[in-house]
C-alpha cells in the first residue's frame, strides 16, 4: 500500500472544510454582515495597549489610534508598560499630556496582567479594546466594529488583520495567510464559531470581561483562552471584516516558527486541558462541532502529511539510486522522452484533489482581500504561501506536539 493512501482522509476533511466555508460565505448570516454599514453610535471606549519592549513600534501604534475617526471625548487610550527593559517606557512617556492618552508603568507580569490593569483603570468605558503595540489601525476601523455590539448577546468583536507593509517574502507569505484568515473569521463568526479574539484590535463589552473574571495567562495565549471562556459562558463573538488592522510579523523562519509554536501550543493546551468539554459538543454549535475538532485534526494532518511526503521523497530517491547505481550517470541524467502524448499525463485523484484544495485556498484569499478592501498586491504572497507554507508549518506543528507531550514551556519571545 502506498503511503499516499494515508493522506486521503485528511484531504477529504480539508475539502469538506473549504466547501463549508464557501457555502457559509454565500449564506444569509454572512451576507447580512457584509452589508452592514458604518455605525453612527459613539459609546465610551477605552483602547488598551499592553507593551513589553516595543520601543520601535509603539509610537506608530499610538499615532494610528489617535488618528481614529471617533469623538475624542469618548475615546481613551491606555498605554500599559509591562516592565519593558528597552526604551519603550521613554517613548510612552512622550504621550503624557496628550488628552486622550493614559500612561501606566508596572512590573512585568505578563500580557494578561497588563490588559487587566488597563481595564481596571477604565471604569468609564462601556467597551474596551486591545491593540498589540506592534499593530496599526485604519481610521474607520473602530466605527466598523462598534455597530456589531448592537446585539446585547455579543461579547466581543474581532477585526480584519493583515501584515503591515510586507516587504520580505516571509512577510508576504504571512500576509497571504492573514488575508485567508479574514475570510475564515468573517465566515465562521457568522455562525459564532470563533475561538480566538486576537490581540490586534479585538473589542469587548467591559462588564462581560469582568463577569467572566478578566484575562488569564491562558498558556501564553490569553486572547484564545478568553474567547473560549466567553463561548462557554454563552456570549457571541463577532467579526468586522472591513475593520482593518495591520500588524508586524516575524521576519525570519525561526522567529515565525517560535511565534506559531506559541499559538499552536496555546490552542492545544487550552482546548485539550481546559476546554475539552466543548470538543464535539453540539451545545457549542459551529465551535463545538466544526472548529475545535477540525482544529485538532489540522495539527495531526499537518504533521502526518508532511511526514508522508518526506518519507515518500526519500523512498523514491533511495529506489532511484538503487536502480541506477552502476549505470553511467550520463545515461541516467539524460532525458528519455520518446514523444509527448496525453497518454503519459500523470493525473491522479490525489493530484487533482490537492490542486482543487489549493485553488479553493487561493479563492478564499482573494475573497478576504475583496471583502476587507485590504490594499496592496497579493501575488507573491500567494505564490510563496502555496509553495513554502506547507513545508514550514509542520515544524511548528511538530514542535508544538513535542511541547505538549513533554510539558515543555517556552518563553514568549
Amino acid at each position, binding site marked *: 500500500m502506498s503511503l499516499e493512501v494515508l493522506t486521503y482522509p485528511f484531504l477529504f476533511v480539508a*475539502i469538506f472544510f473549504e*466547501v463549508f466555508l464557501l457555502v457559509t460565505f454565500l449564506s444569509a448570516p454572512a451576507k447580512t454582515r457584509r452589508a452592514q454599514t458604518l455605525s453612527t453610535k459613539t459609546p465610551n471606549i477605552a483602547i488598551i495597549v499592553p507593551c513589553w519592549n516595543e520601543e520601535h513600534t509603539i509610537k506608530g501604534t499610538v499615532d494610528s489610534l489617535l488618528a481614529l475617526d471617533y469623538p475624542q471625548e469618548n475615546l481613551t487610550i491606555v498605554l500599559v508598560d509591562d516592565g519593558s527593559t528597552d526604551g519603550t517606557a521613554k517613548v510612552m512617556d512622550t504621550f503624557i499630556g496628550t488628552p486622550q492618552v493614559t500612561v501606566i508603568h508596572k512590573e512585568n507580569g505578563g500580557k494578561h496582567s497588563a490588559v487587566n490593569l488597563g481595564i481596571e483603570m477604565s471604569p468609564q468605558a462601556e467597551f474596551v479594546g486591545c491593540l498589540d503595540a506592534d499593530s496599526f489601525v485604519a481610521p474607520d476601523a473602530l466605527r466598523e466594529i462598534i455597530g456589531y455590539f448592537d446585539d446585547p448577546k455579543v461579547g466581543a468583536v474581532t477585526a480584519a488583520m493583515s501584515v503591515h507593509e510586507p516587504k520580505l517574502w516571509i512577510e508576504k507569505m504571512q500576509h497571504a495567510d492573514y488575508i485567508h484568515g479574514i475570510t475564515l473569521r468573517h465566515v465562521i463568526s457568522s455562525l459564532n464559531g470563533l475561538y480566538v479574539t486576537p490581540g490586534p484590535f479585538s473589542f469587548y463589552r467591559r462588564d462581560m470581561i469582568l463577569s467572566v473574571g478578566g484575562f488569564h495567562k491562558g498558556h501564553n495565549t490569553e486572547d484564545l483562552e478568553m474567547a473560549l471562556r466567553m463561548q462557554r459562558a454563552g456570549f457571541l463573538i463577532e467579526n468586522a471584516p472591513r475593520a482593518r488592522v495591520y500588524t508586524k510579523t516575524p521576519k525570519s523562519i525561526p522567529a515565525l516558527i517560535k511565534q506559531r509554536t506559541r499559538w499552536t501550543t496555546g490552542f492545544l493546551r487550552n482546548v485539550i486541558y481546559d476546554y475539552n468539554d466543548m470538543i464535539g459538543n453540539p451545545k457549542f454549535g459551529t465551535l463545538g462541532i466544526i472548529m475545535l475538532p477540525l482544529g485538532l485534526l489540522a495539527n495531526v494532518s499537518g504533521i502526518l502529511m508532511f511526514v508522508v511526503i518526506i518519507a515518500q521523497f526519500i523512498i523514491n530517491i533511495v529506489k532511484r539510486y538503487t536502480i541506477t547505481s552502476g*549505470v553511467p550517470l550520463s545515461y541516467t541524467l539524460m532525458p528519455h522522452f520518446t514523444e509527448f502524448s496525453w497518454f503519459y499525463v500523470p493525473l491522479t485523484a490525489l493530484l487533482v484533489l490537492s490542486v482543487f484544495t489549493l485553488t479553493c485556498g487561493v479563492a478564499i484569499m482573494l475573497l478576504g482581500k475583496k471583502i476587507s478592501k485590504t490594499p496592496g498586491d497579493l501575488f507573491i504572497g500567494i505564490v510563496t504561501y502555496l509553495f513554502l507554507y506547507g513545508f514550514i508549518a509542520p515544524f511548528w506543528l511538530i514542535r508544538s506536539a513535542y511541547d505538549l507531550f513533554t510539558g515543555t514551556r517556552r518563553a514568549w519571545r
Partner: protein
Amino acid sequence: MSILNRNIIISFVITVVLISTVVYAINYLNQKRVAELSTIENQLSTETLSVETQYALLENAPCENFTQGSSTEDTLLSQEVSDIGDKLSYTEDKLGIKDPQVVQLKNQYTLLEIRDYILTQQLAKTCHLNPTVVLYFYTNSGECKDTCDRASYALSYLRQTYPSIRVYSFDYNLNLGALKTLEQVEKIQPQFPAFVINHKQYYGFTNLTDFQKNFPASLFATSTAATSTKATKK
C-alpha cells in the same frame, strides 16, 4: 433545520460528489489509456501479419536484402512495438499488475514479442546472420522486485547504447501457453532475473560491469544501427 446543520449537509454532499467525480474521471482516463492500447494492439496485429507475409514472400529472395543491423530491424516489428511497450508499462503502473485488461494486453504483447523473436531467428538462420539477442525473464513478485528493476534499467542502458542488441522481456508468471513453451524450450529455471543471451542461460544480476561480461566482447567495440523492443518490464 439550523443554518449550521444545513450547511454541513450541503458541504458534505458537495464534497462526496466532487471527490466521486474526480475519482470517476481519473478512472475513465485510465480506461481510455487501455482503450488506446487496444487500438494500437489491433494495428500491430495487422502489422505482424503483414510482416509474416513479407517474410514468406521474401523467403526465396537473396539474403543481401537483410544485411545485419539495417533492414532486418526496419522490416520487423519496429518502433511501434517499443512505443506500446512503454505505454503498457505505464498503464501497468497506473492500473496495477493484476488488472484484467492489463494482463490481457500483456498476453497479446508477449505473443508479438515471441513472434518477432521467431522471425528474427529464422532470418538469422537462413541468412547466416549473428544478431545479439537477449531474452529477459522477470517477475513482478517481491522475490525479484528490486533486482529485476535494476536489471531492466541496465538492459535499457545497453540497448540504447549498443543498438545492435535485441532485447525481448517477458513476465515469467504470465499465464500464456506460448510463453510457457518458450520457457521450456529455452530451459528457463524459476530464478530471477533470468537471461538468455545468444542461447545461453544466465541467472541473477549484480551490477552492470559483471553483466556485460555475458555478452560477446566484440559487441562493445562497435555499435550498429537501430533495434526493436525495449527492456522495460511490461
